[in-house]
């Protein structure tokens, strides 16, 4: 069959004529079309300059599962990274929070330690006060020789327990019942820091802070002497020197009949005294009671025989 076809073609080519022309044009057209297609594909990047395809469908098909697996792994790793970043942020937040708590704890401890130190300091002042009161009671002769110094020193121990000494400038005075004037109290002792005029002041029993404490037998605190709701002797008020005053009756326990005087502490600032200081001052009033009592009784004996 093939041989028959080839013989026919041979005959046609040898004989010349239209077939030969047709065949040349056909071959030229096919070659031209092939060139154009090649150039277009080359331009599009579908083949290289040797005409080889740049896409290898067989190879791509083989790599597809591996690629998909890798993509899944990448996605998983990105998710894990996001989770780890979230955990890291949480940890950082916790660390910051813990640091803040440690700082707060340290501050609280320091405040507690400061208060503890203040309490132990007060204990020491109480101990020395008790010791000196006992010495004065044990040695009356020495007490009467140095009475004013001893009281000044005892009241200074009380002042030592007050916080913010420089701002408050606390001054202490003790007044007792006036031997002659029924409406007034009289100076008995004072701490350092007072002028000599402290001895001259005789608080009214009705109309002064000390008088109020004396009358009622109860602690009377005036946080601001300028505040008219409080009972205070405003004729002698001197806001230049102090703005608050605390008056504590000297009595044995809660029995008002045992009162013998009033211990007053002034403060330069408004609301100078906190609860703890008021309690300490009350403690000192009790500590000083025996000595003041002894002194008053001695005076009465010497006056009335």
């Amino acid at each position, binding site marked *: 069959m093939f041989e028959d076809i080839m013989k026919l073609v041979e005959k046609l080519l040898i004989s010349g004529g239209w077939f030969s022309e047709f065949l040349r044009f056909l071959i030229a057209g096919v070659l031209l079309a092939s060139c154009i297609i090649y150039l277009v594909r080359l331009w599009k990047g579908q083949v290289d300059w040797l005409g080889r395809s740049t896409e290898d469908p067989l190879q791509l098909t083989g790599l597809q599962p591996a690629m998909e697996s890798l993509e899944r792994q990448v996605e998983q790793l990105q998710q894990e990274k996001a989770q780890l970043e979230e955990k890291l942020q949480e940890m950082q937040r916790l660390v910051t929070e813990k640091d803040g708590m440690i700082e707060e704890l340290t501050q609280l401890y320091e405040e507690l330690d400061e208060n503890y130190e203040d309490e132990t300091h007060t204990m020491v002042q109480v101990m020395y006060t008790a010791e000196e009161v006992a010495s004065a009671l044990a040695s009356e002769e020495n007490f009467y020789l140095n009475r004013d110094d001893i009281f000044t020193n005892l009241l200074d121990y009380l002042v030592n327990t007050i916080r913010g000494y420089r701002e408050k400038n606390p001054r202490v005075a003790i007044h007792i019942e006036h031997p002659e004037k029924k409406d007034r109290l009289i100076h008995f002792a004072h701490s*350092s*820091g007072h002028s000599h005029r402290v001895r001259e002041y005789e608080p009214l029993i009705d109309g002064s802070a000390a008088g109020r404490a004396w009358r009622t037998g109860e602690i009377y605190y005036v946080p601001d002497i300028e505040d008219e709701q409080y009972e205070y002797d405003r004729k002698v008020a001197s806001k230049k020197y102090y703005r608050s005053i605390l008056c504590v009756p000297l009595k044995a326990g809660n029995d008002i009949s045992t009162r013998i005087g009033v211990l007053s502490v002034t403060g330069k600032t408004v609301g100078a005294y906190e609860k703890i200081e008021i309690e300490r001052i009350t403690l000192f009033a009790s500590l000083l009671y025996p000595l003041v009592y002894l002194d008053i009784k001695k005076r009465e004996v010497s006056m009335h025989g």
Partner: protein
Amino acid sequence: MGEPEKVPQQERRELNKLYREGTITRKQLMSRMKKGLFDHERLAMKEKFNQFMNRFK
């Protein structure tokens, strides 16, 4: 246990005076008046606390 070591009376008066005059601070008055009296438990606790805090540094 022996008698606690106290500050002599004269020295206490001097300390009171120095404090009033502003020559010494309250902290100094506390330290010199106390000499550790009533303070050992506080100091021991402070030491414990400092050791505890050192673990976080």
